[in-house]
C-alpha cells in the first residue's frame, strides 16, 4: 500500500488555508426605492468592526461593479473620502463609514461605479450607489434599516473531521486498487 501523498498534501493545505485566511463576509442593502446592493468581501472581525478588508465584490441591482474595488472611509469634517484601503465596516449600520469604488475614491476623479455608506455629524447618514455604465443610481438619507453584514458560513470542526475521514477512505480505496 502506497501512502496517497498528493491527497494528504492537499488536505493539509486546505486545513492550513482555512486557519490562515480572513473570514468571508456578505453584505447587502436595499434602498427605499427597492434598488439593491449586495456583495462579498474578506475581512477580520474586530469587535463591532471588520478590519483588513479585501477582495470586495459589489453587485448593484444584479450587475457587478467593474474593476478591482478600492476602499476608503469618509472624513466628515473635511468632506472628503480619505484613508485609501481603510474602510470602516460594521454590522451596525450607524458605524459604517466606507466607500467601495472602481478607482481610488480619495482621488479627484469620479469612478464609474461606487457604493458608499457613511455616517457623519455634518453629512448625516447617507447611502449611495451608482453605476454610470448602466445608469443605475440610488440614494438614501437617512438609511433604511436594511443593512446586513454577515460572515459567510465556515465549516465546523466535525465537518473538517468528516472531510479528513473521507480523504482517508479515498486513499485506502486507491491503495487497494493498486
Amino acid at each position: 500500500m502506497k501512502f496517497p501523498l498528493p491527497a494528504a498534501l492537499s488536505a493539509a493545505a486546505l486545513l492550513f488555508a482555512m486557519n490562515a485566511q480572513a473570514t468571508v463576509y456578505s453584505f447587502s442593502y436595499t434602498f427605499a426605492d427597492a434598488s439593491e446592493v449586495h456583495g462579498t468581501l474578506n475581512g477580520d472581525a474586530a469587535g463591532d468592526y471588520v478590519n483588513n478588508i479585501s477582495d470586495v465584490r459589489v453587485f448593484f441591482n444584479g450587475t457587478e461593479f467593474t474593476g478591482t474595488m478600492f476602499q476608503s472611509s469618509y472624513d466628515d469634517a473635511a468632506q472628503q473620502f480619505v484613508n485609501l484601503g481603510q474602510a470602516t465596516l460594521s454590522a451596525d449600520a450607524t458605524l459604517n463609514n466606507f466607500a467601495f469604488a472602481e478607482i481610488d475614491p480619495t482621488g479627484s476623479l469620479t469612478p464609474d461605479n461606487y457604493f458608499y455608506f457613511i455616517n457623519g455629524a455634518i453629512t448625516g447618514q447617507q447611502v449611495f450607489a451608482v453605476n454610470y455604465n448602466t445608469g443605475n443610481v440610488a440614494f438614501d438619507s437617512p438609511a433604511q434599516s436594511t443593512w446586513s453584514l454577515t460572515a459567510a458560513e465556515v465549516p465546523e470542526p466535525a465537518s473538517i473531521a468528516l472531510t479528513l475521514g473521507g480523504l482517508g477512505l479515498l486513499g485506502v480505496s486507491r491503495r487497494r486498487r493498486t
Partner: protein
Amino acid sequence: MNSIAQSASQRSLRNPLLTLAVLSTLAGVVVPASAVGLGGVTVRGTVGGTLFTPPVVATSPAKGTASRTEASVFQNAKVCFDTNDNGACDAGEISVLSKADGSFLLSGRSAAPVIAEVSTASLNNGKEVQQRMVLRIAPEQVATATFNPLMPATIAITPLSTEVVRMMEEERLSYATATETLASRLDVTPAALALAPTAMPEGAAKHAVTTESVILSNRLALAAKMVDRKDVSPSALALNPSATAPAISIKEAQQAVMNLEGIPRYDHVFIIMMENKATSSIKNSVYAPRINAYLNEGNEFTSYYSTGNPSEPNRLAVVAADDFGITDDSAFNCMPSGTSATNAIEDLPLPAGTSACTNATNHNIKNKPNLLTALSARGMQWRIYSESKPPMGDWRRDGTADTTVTAPDYIYDASEPVGAIGTPGLNVRLAGALYAAKHNSSVFFQNVRSSPEFLKNNRTMGGGQWDAALTALPDKPAGWTVDQFGDDLQSGDVGQLNILEPDQCDDMHGVTLQGTVGTSTTVKAASDCSGNALIYRGDKYTDYLIKKIKASPLWNNPNKRIAIVMMFDEGTATSGFNSCCGWNTSSTPLAVGPLVRNPDGTVSNETIANYNKGNKGHGTSIHGVLTNQPNAPRGVQDSDAYSHVSLVRTFQDMFQLADPGEDWSYMNRSKYTEQFIAANILNLPEYAGSADTHFDAVRPMNHAYVIPAGYVQKNGYPTIKQTGPDADQRNGWGVK
C-alpha cells in the same frame, strides 16, 4: 471674493467634472464625461415652489377668504440633464420624474444643465397644475451644493433658482452677483435662495421668498405658454418686425416675460395723484417749482390725456381702463331706478348716513376686471393711501367736517411765490370731504369693496395739516395711525401698486377751508386751499411725498425697482381732442358699451346705460416718472399720446397681469390697440371714421412708436404743438 463665490470656487476646484460642467455650460457647450475620462454626475433634491390660492370674494370683506400662499413641492415634474440646453427634456436626455415629496435623483454621464419641466401632468402639493413651466438652476448653484464629487449635489429647483439663471443670462452676471442681487431685492440671505421653500423656517424670509415665487411662477408659466404657441423669437423680430420665425426659445421667453411690451417689471410703483390741472397750469409754473424740478430730473410723458370729467370717472379709468359711462362724482350706491336687481350693493350695511341714490348711470361697477382685483388674484398687493382720513369714518364715504379738529393755518412769507399769506393764530377746522370717496379708486368696484383686502389695503397717509389733531382724537380704532404710509415705507409692507391720494387741499383740488382765531367767532378762510396758493400747497406736498419715498429703505435699495408717478387725474380742456388712446370718440354711432367676448367666442357690445357719455376725456396734464434705478434713462420726453387707459395697459404689462399674445387678456378698453380695433371694427363703430388711428388706439407707455415726420401733435404746451418725432426714443419706463 464674497463667501458664496469663494465657496463655489473651492468646491469646483475639488470637483474637476463640475468645474468643467460650469465652464462648458457657460460657454454653451456640453462636454461629455468621457472627455475627462470617467464617471458621471449625480444630483438630487427637490422641485419646489408655491401653491397660491387667490382670495375668495364674497359679498363683503368679512365674508370673503384672503389669499393663501404655501410652500409646495411638485410631483411628476420631469427633471433632466438638458444636454442640448434648449430648456426642454427631450427624448434621449436622461430624466426622472419627481416623487410625491418633490424629490428626485438624477444621474448621468454628461455634465449638463439641470432643468425641471412642471407640466399639467404634475401636481403642486397634490393639486393639478394648470399651466406648465420650466424651472432651471445655475450650474454654479449645483457646484456650490457639491460638497464632494462622489456625493450627489443636493439642490432645489425652484422659481427663484430659475430667476437667478435668468438674471445671469440677462446681465451676464456671475452666479454670486445674481444671487446677491436677488437676495438683496428680497431682503433675504443668498443662502435662502438655494432652499426649497418647504425647507425654510417660518418667518419674514420665507414670506418674501414664497411671495416672489408666486409672482415668478406666473411669469414662468407665461414664458412656457409663449414657447408652446410658438411665438416668434424677439431677436428675430428686432431684426425684422414682420418675421414669422424662428420660434421663441424658453430662455428668450423667460426674459421676455420680464419686459412685456417693452415695460420692465418694477417692484413697487407709487402714484401721486393730483387734481384738476392742465399741463399749462403746472408746467413751468412759479407755483409748482418742485414738481417742475422733478419733471426735469425724471422722465415726462408730454401728451398724457385724462379720460373723463370730473374726478370719479378718472379714478375708475386709472385702475380699470374704463369709466363705464360715469360722468359725475356720485356715490357708489347710485344707480338707475329699477336696476337694484342687477346693481344691488352687496357689502351691506351701507356706511352710516348714506342716502339712497338714483342716478341715470350705474356707479356700482360689478364683475369688471380692474388692476386691484387682478393684482390680488396673482399674489400681489395694492394700496390706496389717503390723507386726512378721520379714524372713525368709512372708506366708502367722505370724511365729515369736525369743528373740534383744528390745525394752525399755513403761513407763507414774502419770499415765496404766493407772497406773505396766512393768518397767525387761525385754527383751521377739519373740513368735510378732505378725504373724498370719489378720489378712492377702490370704492366703485363691488368686487374690490367686497374683497378681503378692501379694509386692509386702504390705509392712512400722513403729512397733513390735521395729523396731530386726528392723532389726539379719543376712541380711535386699535392700531390706527395717522401715517400708515410712513410706517409701510420703513417696513416695506407696501403694494406693487400704491395710489397716494392727498387730501383735497394738498391735491390742488380745493375745498372750503375756514377757521377762527382764538375765541373769536369770526370765520376766516385758510391761506392756501384755493387759487395759486392751492397749487403751491400741492407742490409742497408732492415734494414731501417724494422726499419721503426717496428716504425709504425701499428706494435706497437699487436692487428693488421703485418708481414714482406724478400725475393729475384730469386736465381742464372741454373741447377738441380731450382724450386719446381708447377714448370714446365723438364719431357716430356711439358705443353702447364695452366690447366683450361671449362664452361661445362671439364678440358683442355690452349695453350699459349712458356708456356713450363716458371716456370722453378732459384734456392733457403733466405726467412724470421718477425711478430709483441708477442706470435708467433720464430726461426722456415722450410725446406719444397716452391716457389713463394706456397707463392701465402699462401696469398690466409691468405686473404681468395680461398676455400680449392674447388681446382679450387686457382689461376693458385697454385692449383697444390699433390692431385690435382694426380686427373688431364692425363692433367698434365709433372708430370706423377715425382720422388718426394711432391717436385713437391704446398702447403701453413704452415710447416704441416713432412719430412720423410732419405729424403735428393735437395738443401742445403752452400752445406750440410739436411736429415730428421726439429727440430720442428712450423708454421713460426703462431701467437701463
